[in-house]
């Protein structure tokens, strides 16, 4: 049966947008042969091929003819004519509203900006703005020409073979058990690899004397560029598929591995990539790298760890990354909120200018902790050190207040290369580290490689269960040269600073003795050869396997210190894989059993005079500090970026209260109880005064209610009275949404109750230009006072101050004094007097309201 249907293309953008995909998918449902002809050009396309339809270049008003031949022609006709009449005309409708996921929390200011945001998972905090640059996974060999004396026929054969091989590979993969998402991608790839138009294009290019490689490249570019121009993300996705397919085809044609691509940055940039190797990351110019967006990476991937070390804001898991974030456009990556913003309008620009300035002020305020050690209010010291993986990270870490290097991971020196680094190469790195530390301790962990970390030259077997397998210290006896070389370099470097060495994955005293014995041997050899070294270099082990907790009496006779690697220890102890979505909920360091384990470890170690540090993720959460201080740890080691905030937090805590908190936690029955306990801990907030000059602004240039509220909450954030300013803002808006807090007479009193605040606070902003507060009423507001109280606070004293303030605001004289006061200090003095607040002596902490 034959049928025909004619129509005129109703679409302004022609048939190279979404409709091509829909048409091809629809046609593919039928067995009949279906052809689409562009009557203007006379070109004919297989209607089941997206690429073919696009190649037809059907424009608005072009006459088109569909020709159907086959057993189900009638059904096909009905469907296709319906498509042409009813569905096609609607294809180019742009989505009506910006797509904002309800699940992300956004400040009101950004919600009002009315822009489209792309959600991602923050893995390294901060905000970065720059031009989007796409990193390709691999470069193509420069020479695609193939042999000089190639023949057309030979190249055609190569191309056909490549296509056939690729299709087979894809079909085979599809036969495996796959997730629906993976299967979807593979099917899309298969349909492109099987797209007749692609094959024809390649053949056409070869026939004009291109090599198979060049033909594939150009055919890919031809289709991909057309598709990339589409507004629809769906179609742009196909372009990426085309590029992917062509890469794979090239690999089939050319064989061999491709090199990982280097990326040159020429201006402040945001790099987008499917994934990035640590090497690629390190090669990037850090001054120009403002942020990183990765399609795939977990929080413990090495690249992410490096990004944190260097303070590069990073997001992962941004859907349809390259389709949604166009290369060459200026974008903002907000890794605090977890979004990428691709349209920067005036509101966004201003918002981020203010965010940057707030961030700078927050850093300034933290700056006084850089040089000083972190000590609690009642005198207990907790050293805060940094984790690094390269010698370059040390200087920035010390600039950010690190008191030492608690963990220098050395694996990266060994990965992604053809052979192990030489002794001299390693010596150079360790020496630079020791010197950069200038007398501060540097703990170097010897190579910790196993199933999950690739170093092919070691020829480690693939294991079914690498995490319980051949890794860490276990491989040293068999790879004696490897470990000896590394230890020689470390020992020689010990002459240049305070170097300490630590072994990973130790589970028995025997292993510790072996390690120590090897070191002693090497030291003897080196001394005999006249090399300088530190004979008192301290030797320690990681605590990762639970067994260590029960043999500390014996172990501490052999070693000098311990560092608790909570990431692995927690996994092994609770037998739960943190990457397994189904059981990840069990992986929680607040599990009372884990806290008891930690308590035992620290107690046993200290009884034997052994120093105990902690270098896992548990250490970086300020909320858990009371437990860590209560445990009596000597040190915590975290990413460089986290150091200052933790040091500041420590100075606000009381060790006595922390001891109590830990005792209570150890008696808890489950994580929820411990959580509630931590919520009630206010991080020393009760000791802080309600008001401080830094919470007062008398010359604000905020122009809207949203800006004012954010400005006051930001002042709380800068003053470290909250770590979650967004939550505080939400609490204020929750109250504000019920009824405007404008009082009349140019005043407003937004307020809230929330535990996202560490200390009850009063903030004030006096505006240069009055701002509208309540749209229902024409009166504008000149002075805004925010009252913020902790939900779980039962301290009546502060509430009395609030009620007094509220009452005073009803009096003309009081308001006039606030409006007329010359500056922050004047306002502060007046309020302190009127509200009878305790006076604070004028010391640096007076600015911040912290009791000395």
């Amino acid at each position, binding site marked *: 049966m034959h049928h025909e249907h004619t129509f005129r293309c109703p679409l302004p953008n022609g048939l190279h947008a979404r409709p091509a995909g829909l048409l091809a998918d629809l046609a593919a449902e039928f067995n009949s042969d279906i052809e689409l002809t562009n009557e203007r050009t006379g070109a004919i396309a297989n209607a089941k091929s997206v690429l073919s339809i696009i190649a037809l270049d059907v424009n608005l008003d072009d006459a088109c003819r569909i020709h159907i031949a086959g057993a189900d022609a009638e059904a096909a006709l009905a469907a296709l004519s319906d498509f042409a009449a009813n569905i096609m005309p609607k294809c180019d409708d742009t989505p009506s509203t910006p797509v904002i996921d309800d699940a992300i929390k956004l400040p009101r200011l950004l919600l009002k900006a009315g822009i489209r945001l792309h959600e991602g998972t923050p893995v390294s905090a901060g905000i970065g703005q720059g031009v989007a640059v796409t990193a390709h996974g691999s470069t193509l060999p420069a020479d695609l020409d193939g042999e000089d004396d190639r023949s057309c026929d030979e190249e055609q054969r190569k191309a056909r073979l490549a296509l056939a091989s690729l299709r087979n590979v894809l079909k085979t993969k599809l036969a495996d058990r796959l997730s629906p998402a993976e299967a979807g991608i593979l099917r899309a790839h298969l349909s492109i690899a099987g797209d007749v138009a692609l094959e024809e294009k390649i053949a056409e290019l070869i026939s004009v004397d291109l090599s198979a490689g060049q033909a594939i490249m150009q055919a890919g570019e031809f289709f991909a560029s057309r598709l990339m121009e589409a507004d629809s993300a769906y179609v742009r996705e196909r372009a990426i598929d085309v590029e992917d397919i062509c890469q794979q085809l090239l690999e089939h044609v050319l064989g061999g591995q491709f090199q990982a691509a280097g990326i040159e940055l020429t201006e402040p940039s945001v790099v987008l990539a499917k994934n990035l190797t640590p090497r690629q990351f390190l090669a990037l110019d850090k001054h120009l790298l403002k942020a990183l967006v990765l399609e795939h990476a977990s929080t413990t991937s090495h690249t992410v760890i490096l990004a944190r070390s260097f303070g590069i804001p990073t997001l992962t898991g941004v859907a349809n990354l390259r389709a949604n974030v166009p290369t060459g456009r200026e974008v903002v990556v907000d890794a605090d909120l977890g979004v990428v913003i691709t349209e920067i309008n005036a509101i966004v620009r201003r918002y981020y200018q203010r965010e940057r300035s707030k961030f700078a002020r927050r850093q300034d305020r933290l700056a006084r902790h850089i040089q000083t050690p972190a000590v609690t209010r009642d005198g207990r010291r907790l050293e805060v050190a940094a984790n690094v993986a390269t010698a370059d990270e040390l200087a920035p870490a010390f600039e950010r207040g690190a008191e030492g290097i608690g963990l220098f991971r050395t694996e990266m020196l060994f990965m992604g290369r053809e052979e192990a680094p030489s002794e001299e190469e390693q010596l150079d790195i360790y020496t630079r580290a020791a010197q950069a530390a200038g007398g501060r301790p540097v703990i170097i962990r010897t190579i910790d490689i196993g199933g999950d970390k690739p170093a092919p030259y070691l020829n480690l077997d693939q294991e079914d269960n690498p995490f319980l397998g051949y890794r860490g210290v276990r491989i040293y006896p068999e790879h004696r040269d490897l470990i000896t070389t590394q230890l020689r370099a470390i020992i020689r470097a010990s002459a240049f600073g305070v170097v300490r060495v630590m072994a990973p994955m130790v589970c028995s005293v025997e292993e510790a003795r072996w390690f120590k014995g090897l070191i002693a041997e090497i030291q003897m050899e080196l001394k005999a050869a006249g090399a300088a070294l530190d004979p008192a270099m301290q030797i320690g082990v990681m605590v990762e396997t639970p067994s260590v907790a029960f043999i500390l009496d014996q172990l501490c006779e052999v070693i000098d210190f311990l560092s608790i690697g909570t990431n692995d220890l927690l996994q092994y102890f609770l037998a739960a894989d943190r990457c397994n979505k189904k059981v990840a909920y069990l992986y929680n360091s607040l599990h009372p059993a884990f806290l008891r384990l930690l308590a035992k470890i620290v107690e046993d170690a200290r009884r034997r005079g052994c120093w105990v540090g902690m270098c896992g993720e548990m250490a970086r959460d300020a909320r858990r500090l009371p437990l860590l201080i209560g445990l009596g740890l000597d040190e915590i080691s975290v990413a460089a970026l986290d150091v200052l905030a933790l040091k500041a937090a420590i100075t606000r805590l009381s060790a006595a209260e922390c001891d109590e908190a830990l005792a209570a936690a150890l008696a808890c029955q489950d994580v929820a109880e411990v959580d509630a306990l931590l919520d009630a801990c206010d991080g020393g907030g009760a000791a802080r005064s309600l008001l401080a000059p830094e919470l007062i602004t008398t010359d604000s240039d905020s122009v809207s209610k949203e800006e004012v509220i954010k400005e006051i909450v930001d002042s709380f954030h800068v003053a470290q009275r909250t770590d979650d300013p967004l939550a505080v803002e939400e609490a204020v808006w929750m*109250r504000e949404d019920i009824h405007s807090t404008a*009082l009349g007479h140019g005043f407003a*009193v937004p307020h809230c109750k929330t535990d996202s605040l560490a200390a009850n606070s009063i903030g004030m902003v006096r505006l240069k230009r009055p701002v509208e507060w309540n749209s229902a009423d024409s009166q504008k507001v000149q002075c805004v006072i925010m*009252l913020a109280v902790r939900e779980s606070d039962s301290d009546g004293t502060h509430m009395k101050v609030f*009620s007094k303030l509220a009452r005073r605001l*009803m009096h003309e004289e009081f308001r006039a004094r606030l409006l007329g006061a010359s500056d922050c200090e004047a306002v502060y003095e007046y309020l302190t007097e009127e509200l009878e607040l305790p006076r604070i002596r004028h010391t640096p902490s007076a600015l911040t309201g912290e009791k000395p």
Partner: protein
Amino acid sequence: MKIVAVTACPTGIAHTFMAAEQLEKTAKALGHEINVETQGAMGIENELSPEDVRDADAVIFAVGIEVEQRDRFDGKKIIEVEVQEAIKHPKAVFEKLGA
């Protein structure tokens, strides 16, 4: 007139007290005696006794939420207004009492 009042707003931090202050100021200016109980985040302050209520000529509730122990006022004529009204137009509230 002898007046008793209760102020209570949802969050209980600011408006409860502002309303109390306004009612007290305005009553004084109009020559009335007033006793205001606040029901705020700290709980009930300046709790009105049964005698206070019995002796009162009028009762004002300036509230945005349920009044606690409302049964104390059974049998009394109560003028109930929004907290905002008491803050912004306190005189009008007293006018409602016919005072």
